[in-house]
């Protein structure tokens, strides 16, 4: 008997008492009725030491201090308007070593969850593959206000489960030493969010 068949047989034997069907009560909130979701998002992001800027114009100032910038292949051209530094486009794919020496990466996102301060990347438009937003030490992420939802259940309906996802809530952090949160371990140590009107 293969391990697969044996395990499945064990589990079927274990359920010989025939547990009754379960009705899952979904009485939790599925829609956020707060009117000021963008303000909630900003509050949560700042709480986790992300830096928040408003308006696409803020990008110019942010990028002025970046010499080498990694970007996904489909980044909108106007996000780089006036940028004088070196643009490293991810085509052909940049190696981990190449990504390790850029100063920052600039991407968009798929959805942002106000209630938890979470930005979700699903490798969709303006986001690139996962390594791109991981290896550089500084992540600059553009979030459109129409991408902001209130609660997690609202975000899930906008996502394709089969796309690789990275959910980001603040910069890399650890609570492993005396359970105090410290920002900056292996992921990008700086997370900067640029909020733009849709």
């Amino acid at each position, binding site marked *: 008997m293969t391990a697969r068949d044996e395990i499945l*047989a*064990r589990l079927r034997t274990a*359920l010989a008492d025939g547990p009754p069907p379960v009705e899952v009560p979904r009485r939790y909130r599925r829609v956020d009725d707060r009117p000021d979701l963008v303000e909630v998002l900003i509050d949560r992001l700042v709480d986790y030491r992300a830096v928040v800027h408003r308006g696409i114009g803020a990008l110019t100032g942010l990028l002025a201090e970046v010499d080498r910038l990694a970007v996904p292949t489909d980044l909108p051209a106007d996000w780089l308007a006036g940028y004088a530094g070196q643009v490293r486009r991810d085509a052909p*794919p940049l190696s981990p070593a190449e990504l390790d020496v850029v100063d920052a990466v600039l991407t968009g996102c798929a959805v942002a969850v106000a209630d938890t301060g979470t930005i979700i990347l699903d490798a969709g438009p303006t986001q690139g593959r996962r390594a791109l937003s*991981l290896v550089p030490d500084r992540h600059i992420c553009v979030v459109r206000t129409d991408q902001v939802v209130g609660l997690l*259940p609202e975000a899930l309906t906008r996502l394709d489960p089969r796309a*690789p996802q990275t959910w980001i809530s603040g910069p890399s952090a650890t609570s*492993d030493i005396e359970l105090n949160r410290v920002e900056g371990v292996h992921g990008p140590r700086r997370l900067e969010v640029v909020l733009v009107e849709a």
Partner: protein
Amino acid sequence: MNRPAVDRSGTGGAVAPATGGGRIRTPLPFPTMAARAVADTQLRANLHRATRTIRAKRARVVDEVPDWQALRDAGAAIKADVQRRLPELLEQFEASATAAGATVHWARDAAEACRIVVELTRAAGAEEVVKVKSMATQEIELNEALEAAGIAAYETDLAELIVQLGEDTPSHILVPAIHYNRAQIREIFQRRMPDAPADLGDEPSALAEAARAHLRRRFLSARVAVSGANFAIADTGTLVVVESEGNGRMCLTLPETLISVVGVEKLLPTFTDLEVFLQLLPRSSTGERMNPYTSMWTGVTPDDGPQDVHVVLVDNGRSAVLADPVGRPALSCIRCSACLNVCPVYERAGGHAYGSVYPGPIGAILSPQLTGVADNASLPYASTLCGACYDACPVKINIPEILVHLRQQAPHPVAEKATMRVLAWVMRSPRRWAAVLRLARVGAGPLGAYRERRSGARTLRRLPWPASAWTRSRDLPLPAPQTFREWWEKQ
């Protein structure tokens, strides 16, 4: 180590559920281990401070969620549904993950799971692996198996790294190095991390920076990563890993080969069910609204992340847990460790006293069920039954109820069993009970009066063996001269 558990099914010839092996047994009884831990004042200070911190953080972020109880109800029900349909959901997961390009393996027990990971690592031509913190791989003692096969395993979670460098074992589900304070961690880094800066301070930020520098090159060049998974989604074949530091993202994204070791109970029926669990887990475990990073992948994504993706589904005793209708909900555990942080016993004894990789209240019910109660008979007693764990549990596992249930199954001394049988016989009849009480009152009357004159209380301080087991840590009260009923009738 692997053997059929008690067959409660009455199905006779069917394949019986089996108990598991690995690091899930207490080498010594809990009271022996706990006595050593309690004597370590530094350990107690570290644990007190850490659990107090995390309790306050959790309370703050749980209190701000108006529908927390509704989320708990949903979480408990989804997990009960998973347990009821586990065989079919596993088959569904296998089919979806395979269709998405992953290879699914099955392991009956710890040894078989380790063998599969060793073979896959060798097939990938690697002599080292980077690891994401995972309870399943700790449970099956994978690092030891890899080392025996000549493969170096590098833990990349900060706390796991501390424990690995310190040649220690984890003492907490979420923060394996909770028993160390910052000064002790600096000392371990200076002693065992060759590239640690000479002037390394003990601020957490400096220690985190040292870990970053130490692991950076390893991440960028690793060819094989080993992870666990917090959730496995049956209808899509998706795996989910929840973490904080980014070491998980590094391991799950950069290597060519990814091997994930997943307990069979980790399934959720649908992707939508994550809307419940990704709200419950971070607030319960680290006391955050959301953990910094959550990664999800479904098989292989062309040109993005590992192109050689494996999932090892592990039983190792879970079928035995499933076989007990009362103990079954222990499989609902999402390893948040909220029950550890609120437990008065854990706070004083620490994780090592439980022997198993699963400490605290959940460990006291999970470990004995995974191994069979006889092999971990002291663990169901490692609790005061205060119920704080049940209140804190995000999936509403009634831990006190299962503790009592397992105590009934644990072996008991002949004398204790005989005493309990006699007592049960006496208490079954009001007439016998009243007669025995009367007898005890009359018999103890003079002694009680004497003790009251001598010490001001009708109690005995010290009894001869074997009753000394009782009076070693508490006084024995003597029957009162008058029962409540007698007093009431006189009023």
